[in-house]
C-alpha cells in the first residue's frame, strides 16, 4: 500500500489478505505461560508465592491423606497399621472412623432399620420442588425428576427398605412425575402435600394425624374461596374454621379413621434425630416456613400503613440485630416461659420456629429487594385494571418479585443451612460438633479430630456449593431472560 503517500488518495485492494498465524511467541503453551503466569516481575513473584502455598499445603496434608486407613476398628488399630505400613512416626488419616460411623453423621440416632424413611423424604423434596424450581426448562426438570427418583430408590434399597415400601415409593413417584409432566399447574398446588408427607415419613405415627392437619388447611382454603366476596372477613372466617377443625375435630376423626384403616409407620421421637437428618429437617422446614412469612413481612414493610410498617421494621431489625445463637438460647431457655403454663413442645419444633423467624427476617429483606426492583408501572396497571391490593400482589407483583429474588433466597437458604450447626449449643446433635464429640467420647475413637471434620465439611461443601451454583445459574438465566 505504498501509494498512500502519493498525491492521489484513491486506493482499492485487489486481493484480500488471508489471515496469518500469530508470531510464535503469541501462541501455544509458551504464550499461555507467559501471559498467565510470568507476564511481569509482580506476576512472577505472585506465581512463586502461589506455588509456595500449594507446596506447603500439599506438603502438610498430602502425606497424612495418602497414609489413610480405611479398615480398622479403633484409633489404636489405625495408628498401628500406619506405623506398620509407612514406618514409625508416620502420620495418617484414619477414615475407618467414617466407615464405621458414617451412619451417625448422616442419620444421628435414627433407627437403623428405618434409614430409608429420611432418604425417601429427602428424595421427595426434589420431586416436590421440580415443578417449582425447574419450571422453565423441561429438560432440566426431567433430569432432576429422573435422577431424584432413581437415586432415592437405589439408596433406599441399599439401606434395606422393605419391599412393599420400595414398590409403593416407585409407583407414587412415577405417578407424581406423570402429573408434573401432564398438568404442571395442579402439580404446583399438589406440592403443598409434601410437607405433610415428609413429617409423616420422618416422625412416623399415624398418617391420619398429618392428613387431618392437611384437611384443616384445605378446609380453611375452601371457606375462604367460598366466601371470597366478604374479603378480609372471609379470611378471618377461614382461619377460625381451620383452627376449630384442628382443635376440635381433627383429633377424634383421626383416631376414628386410624381405627378403620391404620396407616401407621413406626414412630421415631425427636431425640433420635441427629446428624444431617436433623440439619436438613431444620433447614428445609425453616426455609419453607420462612418464605411465606418473609413475603408477608416484606409486604408489611413496604405498606403505606404506618402501624404495620413500623411493626414490620421493628421485627425485622430486631431479628437481624441479634445473633442466631441468642435466638436459639431463647428457644431452649425462654420459649416455654412465653407459653401458657404446662405447654411443652418438642425442642426441634422450637428450634424450627426460631430458625424460621430468623430466616424470615432475612428473607423479607431479599424479597423487599425484589419488590423494589419492579417498575411502578406494574402496580399502576394492576390498579387501573381494577385489581384490589391482594389480587394485584398475588397475580402480578409477587410472581415477578419472587422470580427476581430466587438467587437471594437461595443464598439465604445456604446461610441458614450452615447455621443449623449451631443447634449443638442447645443440646441437639448436629452433624459437626455434637456428633463428632459423641463419637470421639467413645473409647475406640478418642483422639480423632480431623477425620470427622473433613467428612462433615465435605458434605456441607457439596450441598452448599451445589446450591450456590444453582443460584448462579438462575441469576445468569434471569439476566438473559428478556421475556
Amino acid at each position, binding site marked *: 500500500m505504498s501509494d498512500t503517500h502519493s498525491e492521489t488518495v484513491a486506493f482499492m485492494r485487489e486481493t484480500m489478505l488471508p489471515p496469518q498465524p500469530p508470531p510464535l511467541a503469541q501462541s501455544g503453551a509458551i504464550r499461555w505461560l507467559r501471559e498467565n503466569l510470568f507476564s511481569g516481575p509482580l506476576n512472577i513473584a505472585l506465581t512463586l508465592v502461589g506455588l509456595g502455598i500449594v507446596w506447603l499445603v500439599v506438603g502438610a496434608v498430602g502425606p497424612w491423606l495418602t497414609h489413610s486407613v480405611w479398615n480398622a476398628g479403633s484409633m489404636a488399630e489405625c495408628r498401628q497399621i500406619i506405623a506398620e505400613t509407612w514406618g514409625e512416626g508416620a502420620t495418617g488419616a484414619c477414615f475407618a472412623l467414617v466407615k464405621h460411623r458414617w451412619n451417625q453423621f448422616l442419620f444421628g440416632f435414627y433407627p437403623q432399620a428405618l434409614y430409608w424413611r429420611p432418604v425417601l423424604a429427602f428424595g421427595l423434596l426434589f420431586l416436590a420442588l421440580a415443578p417449582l424450581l425447574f419450571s422453565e426448562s423441561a429438560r432440566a426438570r426431567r433430569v432432576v425428576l429422573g435422577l431424584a427418583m432413581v437415586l432415592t430408590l437405589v439408596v433406599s434399597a441399599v439401606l434395606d427398605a422393605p419391599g412393599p415400601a420400595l414398590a409403593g415409593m416407585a409407583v407414587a413417584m412415577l405417578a407424581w412425575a406423570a402429573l408434573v409432566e401432564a398438568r404442571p399447574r395442579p402439580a404446583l398446588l399438589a406440592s403443598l402435600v409434601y410437607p405433610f408427607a415428609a413429617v409423616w415419613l420422618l416422625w412416623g405415627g399415624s398418617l391420619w394425624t398429618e392428613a387431618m392437619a392437611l384437611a384443616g388447611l384445605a378446609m380453611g382454603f375452601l371457606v375462604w374461596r367460598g366466601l371470597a366476596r366478604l374479603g378480609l372477613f372471609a379470611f378471618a372466617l377461614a382461619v377460625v374454621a381451620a383452627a376449630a377443625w384442628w382443635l376440635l375435630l381433627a383429633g377424634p376423626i383421626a383416631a376414628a379413621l386410624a381405627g378403620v384403616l391404620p396407616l401407621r409407620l413406626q414412630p421415631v421421637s425427636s431425640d433420635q434425630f441427629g446428624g444431617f437428618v436433623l440439619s436438613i429437617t431444620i433447614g428445609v422446614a425453616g426455609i419453607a416456613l420462612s418464605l411465606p412469612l418473609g413475603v408477608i413481612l416484606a409486604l408489611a414493610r413496604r405498606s403505606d400503613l404506618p402501624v404495620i410498617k413500623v411493626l414490620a421494621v421493628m421485627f425485622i431489625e430486631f431479628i437481624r440485630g441479634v445473633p442466631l445463637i441468642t435466638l436459639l438460647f431463647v428457644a*431452649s431457655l425462654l420459649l416455654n*416461659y412465653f407459653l401458657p403454663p*404446662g405447654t*411443652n413442645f418438642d425442642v426441634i419444633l422450637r428450634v424450627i420456629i426460631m430458625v424460621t423467624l430468623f430466616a424470615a427476617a432475612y428473607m423479607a429483606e431479599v424479597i423487599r429487594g425484589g419488590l423494589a426492583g419492579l417498575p411502578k408501572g406494574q402496580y399502576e396497571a394492576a390498579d387501573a385494571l381494577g385489581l384490589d391490593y391482594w389480587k394485584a400482589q398475588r397475580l402480578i407483583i409477587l410472581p415477578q418479585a419472587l422470580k427476581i429474588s430466587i438467587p437471594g433466597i437461595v443464598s439465604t437458604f445456604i446461610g441458614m443451612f450452615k447455621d443449623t450447626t449451631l443447634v449443638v449449643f*442447645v443440646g441437639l446433635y448436629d452433624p459437626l460438633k455434637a456428633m463428632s464429640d459423641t463419637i470421639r467420647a467413645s*473409647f475406640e475413637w478418642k483422639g480423632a479430630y480431623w477425620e470427622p471434620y473433613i467428612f462433615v465439611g465435605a458434605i456441607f461443601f457439596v450441598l452448599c456449593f451445589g446450591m450456590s451454583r444453582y443460584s448462579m445459574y438462575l441469576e445468569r438465566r434471569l439476566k438473559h431472560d428478556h421475556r
Partner: protein
Amino acid sequence: AEGDTLKEVKARDALNCGVNTGLIGFAAPDANGNWSGFDVSYCKALAAAVLGDATKVKYVPVTGQTRFTALSSGEVDVLARNSTWTFQRDTDLKLDFIGINYYDGQGFMVRKDLGVSSAKELNGATICIQTGTTTELNLADYFKANNMEYQPVNIDSNAEGEQQYMAGACDAYTTDASGLAATRASFADPENHIILPEIISKEPLGPAVRHGDNNWGDIARWTLYALIAAEEYGVTSANIDELAKSSNNPEVQRLLGTTDELGKMIGLDAEWARRAIKASGNYGEIFAATIGEQTPIGLARGLNAQWTQGGLMYAMPFR
C-alpha cells in the same frame, strides 16, 4: 403447680430426664443412641416406678449452661446430670435437690512428668475448666485463699476438656474427682496421669426437680432412697421377686409393697419400688455396673459406701 408433674408424665407416658451431653460412666449415648450410665440408671428407675417401664424415658441432653433452665422451664421433669447441691441453686434458682447419689469433690489431674504432687504447687499453672459449673467458682476461691495465680482455659464440654488437656493446652484439668477418674480411664495411657490428693471442695451430686411440686419431689426422692435402701437390705435385682414373697424383714416388706401400701401415699401403686429396683438393680449394683472398680472408670466406693460400711449413703427409713 402442686401435683402436676406426675399427671403430666403419666399423660405423656414418658419421663423427660435431663442428662449430661456425654460423660462416660454417668450418661452417654452409644453408637445406636442408647443411653447408659450412673445417672441414666436413676432415670430408668424413676420411669419404672412411675410408668412401670424403664424404657419410657426421653433423655434430654443438657449442657452445663442450659441444665437449670431446662428444668425450671419444664423441659425436663427431673435433672440427673451430676449437679452439685448448693445453697443458691436450692433457693435462688428455685430447684429442689431430692438427695445425693454421689458424694464427690473437686480435684485436679496432671501429667506425671509435670513433677507436681500437690495442688499447692500449681501456682501460675494453666487450668482447664468447664464453664457454668461450681468448679469454676471453687477454683477461683481456692487459688485466692492460697494466694496463688492461675490461668483458666474455659471449655464447654468434657470432650473438649479432654482434647485440650491431652494436647497439653493446660497443665491441669479440674472437675469433680469422679469425672477426672472417668476421663483418666478413657486415656490410652492412664498411668501417665495422676489425680492430685487435694480435694478442694465438697461436691454432693444429686438429682433435682423443680421447686413447688412437692409430690413429684417426694417420688423422685424416695425412688433414690429405695435404691439405696435396697442395697442396705440386700435386695438386688436378682433376688427381689423372691424376697418380695419370702422376706420377713418388715422394712423390706414395706419397701417392696408386700405390706403397708407406701406407694399410695405418693400417688403410685404398691409395687413402685420393686420396679425401680428391678430396672437396673440397687444402688450398689448400679454403681458397680457403671462406674465401679470393675469398669474402665474404676471408682472406689469411698464416701459412697453404705453407712453401714463406713460411707455416707444413708437411706431414710421406709416407714
